[in-house]
């Protein structure tokens, strides 16, 4: 059955790109909400030294005579088990988790895209070797693999980032490989080959640009996932170490106090929730916006 194009789509197709984007955003308020929250988190991360009432508390400062004070006008989020201002640490934490997510996804892209493109474009034994290695990584639950890697590395943010990145790239390789294989079979690619254009030029000029759109959506969706994974590993003591104001670590260190001094874990927990949720909304929205079947963009 051939579906008749919807009137909305027809209108959008007729609109200039700027207006279509505006229509797209208006049609997806959750994307706007996610985007604005993500921007807010980035702003908080950038201006944490100015926003935090006690910037030193995000570092090595402690106040042992002020431990576990409930929220008050002086300490809006209360103080933790060594007297540090929880608000200041939560604000500075915005510099940790999103940054870890960005680095992890960057590494995953840097490793995953070339391998996926090579596998999809060249096929044959190159495809076999790359995809079997990928399959080995994918055979393990990613959190379990990240946990095992983080456990053998010295506990630090760097180790945490490496451990998560090592489990993330195979997904991107697989995704890109499918796209690249599909693009490589198209007639215009065959034409390029017949004309004697070098493979790397075909890949860079034609295969790569036509394969990365789904990855863009996937990366935006994965930011929240990486933040949650990083928080989980820090919670297990395998990531950032005190006094780094990592949200997962703050929840881990405060777990013994959550029934008596709720604020120690609640606020960093909310920060994780809000950040992961915001980036998930952003990813969902971008998917809708960039999906040719659903998008209003020309």
């Amino acid at each position: 059955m051939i579906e008749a194009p919807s009137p909305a789509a027809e209108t959008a197709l007729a609109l200039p790109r700027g207006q279509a984007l505006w229509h797209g955003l208006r049609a997806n308020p959750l994307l706007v909400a996610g985007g604005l929250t993500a921007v807010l988190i980035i702003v908080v991360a950038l201006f944490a030294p100015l926003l935090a009432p006690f910037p030193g508390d995000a570092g090595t400062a402690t106040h042992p005579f002020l431990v576990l004070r409930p929220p008050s006008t002086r300490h809006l989020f209360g103080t933790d088990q060594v007297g540090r201002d929880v608000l200041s640490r939560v604000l500075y934490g915005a510099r940790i988790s999103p940054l870890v997510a960005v680095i992890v996804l960057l590494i995953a892209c840097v490793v995953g895209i070339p391998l996926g493109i090579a596998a999809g474009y060249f096929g044959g034994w190159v495809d076999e070797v790359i995809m079997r290695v990928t399959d080995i990584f994918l055979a393990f639950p990613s959190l379990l693999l990240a946990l095992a890697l983080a456990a053998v590395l010295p506990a630090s943010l760097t180790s945490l980032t490496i451990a998560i990145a090592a489990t993330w790239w195979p997904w991107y390789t697989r995704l890109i490989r499918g796209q690249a294989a599909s693009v490589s079979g198209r007639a215009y690619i065959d034409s390029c080959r017949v004309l004697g254009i070098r493979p790397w030029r075909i890949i860079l000029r034609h295969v790569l640009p036509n394969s990365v759109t789904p990855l863009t959506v996937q990366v935006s969706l994965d930011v929240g996932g990486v933040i949650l994974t990083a928080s989980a590993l820090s919670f297990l003591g395998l990531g950032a170490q005190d006094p780094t104001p990592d949200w997962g670590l703050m929840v881990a260190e405060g777990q013994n106090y959550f029934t008596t001094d709720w604020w120690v874990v609640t606020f960093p927990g909310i920060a994780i929730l809000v950040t992961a949720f915001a980036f998930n909304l952003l990813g969902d929205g971008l998917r809708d916006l960039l999906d040719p079947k659903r998008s209003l963009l020309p």
Partner: protein
Amino acid sequence: MKPHRAGLLASGSALLVLLAACGGSSHPASQKQSGNQVFTYDTSAPVMVDGWDPATEYSDGILAMSNMYETLTRYDAATHTIKPQLATSWSSSANGLSWTFHLRHGVHFHTGRLMTAQAAAAAILRTQKMGGGAGYVWDAVKTISAPSPDTMVFHLKYASPLDLEASASYSAYIYDTQAAGGGSLTKWLNTPHDAGTGPYTLQTWNKGQEFEVILKAFPGYWGGWSGAHYKKVVYRVVPQDTTAAQLLRSGQVDFVEQISPALWKSFQGQAGIHTMSVPSFQNLLSQLNARTLTLPVRQAISYGINYPGIVAALQGAAVTPSGLVPAGLPGHFTNLPNYHYDPAKADQLLHQAGYGPGKKTLNLTLTYTQGDSNEQVVVTLLKSSLAKLNINLSTQSLAWPTQWAKAKSASASSHQSIFLEYWWPDYADPYTWFTNLLQTEKSPYFNLSYYSSSALDKQINQVESLLATNRPAGVQLYRTMQAEVLQQAPLDVLYNVNYQYAMRTSFTGFQPDPAYANVVFAYNLRPTGS
């Protein structure tokens, strides 16, 4: 060892929390409340981590072993006296070189064999020969004779307070050395079995599981079973403080050994739960690597620690120390030349060594035991106060066996700068702080400061003998030794521990005794049925 009152991986804790949340236990012990015959002791770390041999066990096994095995005497911290146990009376010669113990009649080992003077002597001589755990408590013993089945005579190499040493919480147990027949007793014990005379005997050991050790009443116990007694004792391993607190609230455990000060306070005034805070003989030590840290640096670190801050942050679980020896033990003095928090003095000493603010950063490593929330707080505070002195403290939390193995490794390069551990005495005496922690060792074992002083070694070798023959002089020597240790700063006492117990009101009879760290003598408890 010993220094360990907590210590599971945080990951393990989280998984246990998750598993606990996912479903209830199907273990029979979890249904024990109906019969009111089972006493459940909640501990944050596995109990039997150091084997089942009563001669060498030197860790948290004391919690269970003290209910399976008995010693000749038992120390009573409330009255500072030594009470009869397997020995009903004893006396020593005027020169302290000969001790006679009269044994209780009709005591049987769990193997069925009658405990006689010969059997008791065999146990002590085996423990002494093996030399593991706290076997040094029998170091003074030259020979033991048994002139009658219920009389033991000890002949000593040098004067020593044998009645006190015989009350030790480690390596002083009397057990049946014939339990394995012709086979290896150690192997038989580690199967595991027990060969003690105590009120309880081993029923089950579930290694690595939550309901780790289950003891059952020994019907032939010499004290008898008339009156109200618990018939079973369960040691339940719950690493997470919050989970332990919930189990206590819901009546699934009767006694919680260790809990964060905040949670402990939350139980105060709560119906059905009784809280108790008692001074202990336990302290938290930071052992400073004397091989790599020079004297001014060690002293600077000692001045750079915010001791009042640590005590304040631990909210009642910690007491300001004075010297190495906690209050209640001979050799405790309140007027020793202790270190106090003095950043200016620390700064001055560091400058002498070429470090300090504005100079080269001093990078140090510290290891501590995983899973102890109080240690975690202390480490954060240490890091904070030393950072002000331009000392960068890199900390590593490790499971106790790993922490210890790393510290006593033959490779000095793997040794830490600061080793954090709890210490408590093997019997009510300060000797262990000196002989175990500070006496020269060829290969590191517990002297994890790697400290060596021939003068101190000599004093350590004299002190117990002096204490037995001339108590005031012995006590004074302990003062001199502590002054030297404070001056040389191979270790810092960060605080003395206050035991904060929380328990159900469904029993009476619990008498905490710091000489037996965190032990509940279950036979003395009286279940009330409430």
